């Protein structure tokens, strides 16, 4: 493009064309990130369920910390692959998930500190809390990118979180089926909307 002077009409046309072009080029929130976390949770839920069920050892539930692996992977990926263009939408989504991620770290730390002070650490609350955090994060993302499937499907996943919170005070041990419910929730909250989002982007 040469550095030529424009007349008023050409200026207006150029502004409109450039803004339209850059909007068209925005990759509206790819669903891959949701698929990464969604499938990780589904696979982990099956592994944890099978191991706890067959061995009877609740310590296998510590494998849930494996959910930090997709986080580390995406963090490393983002450091190496910076997008050519960052939209306001991208920024908003990134900031939302930064808050959610921080909330996870704070929750784990507070649970460990309280557990240390009280003599025993119980991560049972982590399952419903994780569902609530991720459900809200996914819904906000859906609202920001105007995807109703992504915005409202997590509400169905949150049903399991409500059930867990209601049932927890009356239980002595975390039922082994909760691990499966957790995976099922992520399937509803992230995997289905993630595939739906990718299908929409392909169109």
């Amino acid at each position: 493009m040469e550095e030529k002077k424009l007349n008023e009409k050409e200026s207006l046309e150029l502004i409109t064309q450039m803004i339209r072009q850059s909007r068209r080029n925005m990759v509206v929130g790819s669903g891959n990130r949701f698929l990464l976390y969604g499938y990780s949770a589904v696979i982990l839920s099956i592994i944890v369920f099978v191991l706890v069920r067959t061995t009877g050892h609740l310590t296998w539930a510590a494998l849930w910390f494996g959910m930090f692996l997709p986080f580390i992977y995406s963090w490393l990926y983002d450091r190496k692959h910076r997008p050519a263009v960052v939209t306001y939408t991208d920024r908003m989504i990134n900031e939302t998930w930064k808050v959610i991620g921080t909330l996870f770290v704070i929750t784990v730390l507070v649970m460990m500190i309280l557990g240390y002070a009280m003599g025993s650490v119980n991560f049972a609350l982590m399952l419903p809390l994780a569902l609530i955090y991720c459900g809200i994060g996914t819904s906000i993302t859906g609202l920001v990118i105007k995807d109703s499937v992504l915005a409202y499907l997590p509400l169905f996943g949150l049903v399991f979180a409500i059930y867990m919170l209601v049932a927890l005070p009356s239980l002595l041990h975390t039922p082994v089926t909760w691990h499966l419910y957790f995976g099922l929730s992520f399937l509803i909250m992230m995997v289905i909307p993630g595939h739906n989002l990718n299908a929409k982007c392909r169109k």
Partner: protein
Amino acid sequence: MLQELDPLLHSQLRLAIVSILLSVDEADFVYLKEQTGATAGNLSVQIDKLAAAGYIRVTKEFVGRKTRTSCQITEKGCEAFERYVEAIKSYLKL
């Protein structure tokens, strides 16, 4: 009386750069080059002019082993653009 058009924005490439940056939060050099169809040298010169005027903010960083130059529009740039559009409207009686 017709308002004066900002000479810095009244050039095809600089106006294109500012228009793009107005609709995104941040864009890198390669993206701007693709969108505007400008040569790297020309784009670099125009980016420097806009940055010197305080219309855009330029950040240079390393991503892996490669350098990445990204641009963001500033508040001053947004205001200048708004004034420019208002001036065009007065010319076109919009």
